[in-house]
């Protein structure tokens, strides 16, 4: 039973004497468990240098990656959620919103803005998964709709970065109709021949996949991102079988013909601007 006994004698650091690295200095990859210095991780666009795991980042990080010198004008920054249905589950919806605002410092699950990306004008909308699972309610739908209106009015290409579990149940019917609203605006954008690039990141599922995320002139994704309409658990329950490995990964979706390409986040800005440059 040698694996129960310590081979090296004399390792007796008491718990209180164990030294933790200061918070925020090191990043441990949830995939390969290896440790990277935060500064290096940031320089690699929040991807792991060992296994290339793409950490789930939010709108602030994407904006800093894509907009030149992180300069952009935010659109509709103060739009917040109403409570049209007076929805109560285990918590009142407005309380849930306020608690999430406080926790995340965000107003809702999407931020939109315009600026320059490698000297090209661009409108970017980016979802924040930290805000109630990136769920799509009226604010998300309305901000995306207005961002598209802006792109349409100024003939500026539109980039949508999706990261969402789908619809926001607490807005029920209103949430559902955001799928319709955003698709309507994208129909107009398409008619006006303004380019639309949709980037799908981990995870993109439900009503977001079934509306704007899949409607790009170019649908692209980050490596390993979970992309699907129904969530894996629901599908497993429906078919009563385990799902094949890699099912609903970006690579799987590419193989089945629903993505144009997969892009490493470190190359994202270059790829996006390169693509838009070719359409000019």
């Amino acid at each position: 039973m040698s694996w129960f006994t310590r081979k090296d004698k004399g390792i007796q650091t008491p718990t209180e004497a164990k030294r933790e690295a200061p918070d925020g200095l090191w990043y441990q990859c949830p995939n390969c468990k290896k440790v990277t210095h935060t500064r290096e991780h940031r320089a690699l666009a929040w991807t792991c240098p060992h296994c290339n795991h793409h950490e789930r980042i939010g709108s602030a990080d994407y904006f800093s990656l894509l907009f030149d010198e992180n300069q952009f004008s935010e659109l509709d920054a103060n739009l917040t959620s109403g409570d049209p249905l007076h929805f109560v589950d285990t918590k009142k919806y407005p309380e849930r919103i306020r608690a999430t605002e406080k926790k995340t410092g965000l107003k809702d699950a999407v931020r939109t803005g315009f600026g320059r990306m490698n000297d090209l004008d661009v409108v970017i909308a980016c979802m924040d998964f930290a805000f109630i699972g990136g769920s799509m309610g009226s604010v998300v739908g309305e901000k995306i709709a207005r961002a598209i209106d802006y792109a349409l009015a100024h003939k500026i290409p539109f980039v949508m970065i999706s990261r969402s579990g789908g619809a926001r149940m607490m807005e029920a019917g209103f949430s559902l109709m955001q799928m319709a609203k955003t698709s309507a605006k994208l129909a107009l954008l398409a008619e006006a021949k303004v380019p639309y690039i949709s980037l799908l990141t981990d995870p993109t599922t439900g009503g977001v996949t079934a509306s704007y995320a899949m409607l790009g002139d170019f649908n692209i994704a980050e490596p390993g991102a979970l992309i699907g309409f129904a969530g894996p658990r629901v599908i497993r329950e429906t078919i009563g079988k385990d799902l094949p490995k890699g099912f609903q990964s970006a690579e799987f979706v590419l193989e089945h013909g629903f993505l144009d390409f997969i892009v490493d986040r470190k190359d994202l800005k270059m790829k996006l601007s390169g693509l838009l440059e070719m359409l000019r």
Partner: protein
Amino acid sequence: MRTLLDFEKPIAELENKLEDMKRLAAENNVDVGVAVQTLEDSIGQLRRETFQNLTRWQRVQLSRHPDRPYTLDYIERMCDQFIELHGDRTVADDEAIVGGLGELAGQTVLFIGQQKGRNTKQRQQRNFGMPNPEGYRKALRLMKLAEKFGKPIVTLIDTPGAFPGLEAEERGQGEAIARNLRDMFLLKVPVICIIIGEGASGGALGIAIGDRVLMLENTWYSVISPESCSTILWRSRDYKEQAAEALKLTANDMLGNGLVDGIVPEPLGGAHLDFEAIAQTVKETILSTLGELNQFSPEERINQRIEKFSRMGVVQE
């Protein structure tokens, strides 16, 4: 053999009593006129009381009533002729969505609708009214066909959701629905969408972008079913009644919130009690609505359609 929901049972019991009374009276040649009248009155009263005060969950139950008329039941009764058209021209024909050209009071209309099955075999064949991507692509193909020949479109919605299956994901369920949403906005012909049973989420919306979206009185339309909502938010299926209340998913709720354009009344007790009557009401509704929509040019209809859906949502500036 009729299937009875819990709240239909007390009424059915009185009805059986009435039948027994009439039969006994006839057999024994007794006059029970007064008793029959009293009983008939109380049946009428009970039915009115029950059906004027339905809870949201009871309406959900009615929308799923196994005897409820389905898409083809309506088409058969409304149309003088119907030619069903099959296939998405790419992969398969999805029998959970039916479509075809119908002759409705002398004019040609393209009908699309989810179709449920009446017995086990049919339910399997129709996949319980849960379409695969091919169903949505067939629907769009037929709608573009209608547009090409200038024929109006009527969609009948009745689905517990788009099918959450392995192959459905492989063949792009999300993409198929998304494309329908976008492309239905640009259809040049009038589009009328009617929820005739269940209107579950993206699976319903995928054929429900129209100039007029109407709901039958005892139907529901929302982003999720009460059961799934209960599972996710309360972590148990037992809160489906509360979930139904919270989701505000009935025709009245949806009209009140400006998310649909109108309600089609059903016979007292539900559409399943009188197929002919409800089919007639739906037919008249379609004809009058088409009359309204024909007053506009295609561009006006498209603009109004986009405007209408663009207004939906409640935000604070």
